[in-house]
């Protein structure tokens, strides 16, 4: 009877709280399923940040290990995704900062990440490899030239479908800043697509 009640209460429990409980208990089965479930989305997000597939794959693992270390900080009141992405974001920024001295091909990132030099995408851009349409190929070229903070905002809004408040939580920026990043990112991509279309 108790088992039935427990099972029922777990069914009624919000997913975020299940995740928080599993993380606190170090439930390896559940955590393993989460790793698998979020792998693609996390990888895509980190590719958007780093522009490099291999680095993104390494950072995915580091992100999950960091999630385990800081499991106590997630209380399950908010959705899990923004928390996960914010950890991945911090790792990506740390990683890119460390890389500053190692690469000559980088640009200065503006806005609140001032001073953070970010690498230009590889010759074989992961965006280009991932493009599945002509428009996507044009966008891929434009994405590669875009600052990561704009790429990030676009990804979180249009692929992850996070709300502005959730994106602000991930980015650690005010909602107005996030909104303007999305507007500017969209405008830049529109310019590239419009320009190419006009040229064609």
């Amino acid at each position, binding site marked *: 009877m108790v088992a039935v009640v427990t099972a029922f209460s777990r069914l009624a429990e919000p997913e975020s709280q299940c995740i928080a409980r599993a993380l606190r208990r170090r439930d*390896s089965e559940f955590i393993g399923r989460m*790793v698998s479930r979020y792998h693609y989305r996390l990888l895509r997000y980190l590719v958007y940040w780093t522009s490099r597939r291999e680095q993104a794959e390494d950072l995915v693992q580091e992100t999950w290990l960091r999630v*385990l270390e800081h499991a106590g900080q997630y209380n399950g009141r908010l959705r899990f995704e923004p928390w996960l992405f914010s950890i991945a974001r911090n790792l990506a920024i740390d990683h890119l900062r460390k890389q500053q001295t190692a690469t000559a091909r980088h640009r200065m990132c503006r806005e609140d990440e001032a001073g953070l030099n970010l690498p230009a995408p590889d010759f074989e851009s992961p965006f280009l490899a991932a493009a599945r349409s002509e428009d996507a190929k044009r*966008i891929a070229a434009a994405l590669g030239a875009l600052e990561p903070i704009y790429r990030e905002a676009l990804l979180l809004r*249009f692929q992850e479908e996070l709300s502005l408040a959730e994106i602000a939580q991930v980015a650690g920026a005010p909602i107005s800043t996030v909104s303007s990043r999305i507007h500017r990112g969209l405008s830049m991509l529109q310019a590239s697509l419009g320009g190419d279309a006009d040229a064609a």
Partner: protein
Amino acid sequence: MPLENHEKARFLLHRSLVEGISLEDRHWLDAHVGQCAECGRYADLSARVVRALDWFALELDPAAALRVENVVRSRAEGMRSAEARAKSLWIGTAVAIFLTFTGSAVTWRPLAWLASQWNLPSRVWQIVFVAFWLLPSLLLALLPLFRRRLLGEDSDSNGQTV
């Protein structure tokens, strides 16, 4: 058509994609886009950009995904067992401290009686009691907590110091 209308239309188009717009604004925008070819093209372009963003699909490497999953699982298991060890250690230490003080309280009166039989000054036997009974018991109770540090061992592989 006034220039402000085009600017307003573009502003609302972006806003509708980013955060949504009111029904009233939606009606105005639809009506404007229906009449204005330039803004219509802009709306199409915006929609194409968002669709194109959706068409990015990374190829997943199942082996890499499985590798990450295994590493994370094994780390979670390691942390769980380390935390269980730490928990038992703390409980053991708490019990040992409790027994130290309880035992001291129980032993106090017989020692006081013995000291009076041997005519020992109270300060002397009390110092002896603290030095040879209470302190060694407390040190033994706390020893497991500092075992790793005393033995010069690092924290275990998952970053938890037990």
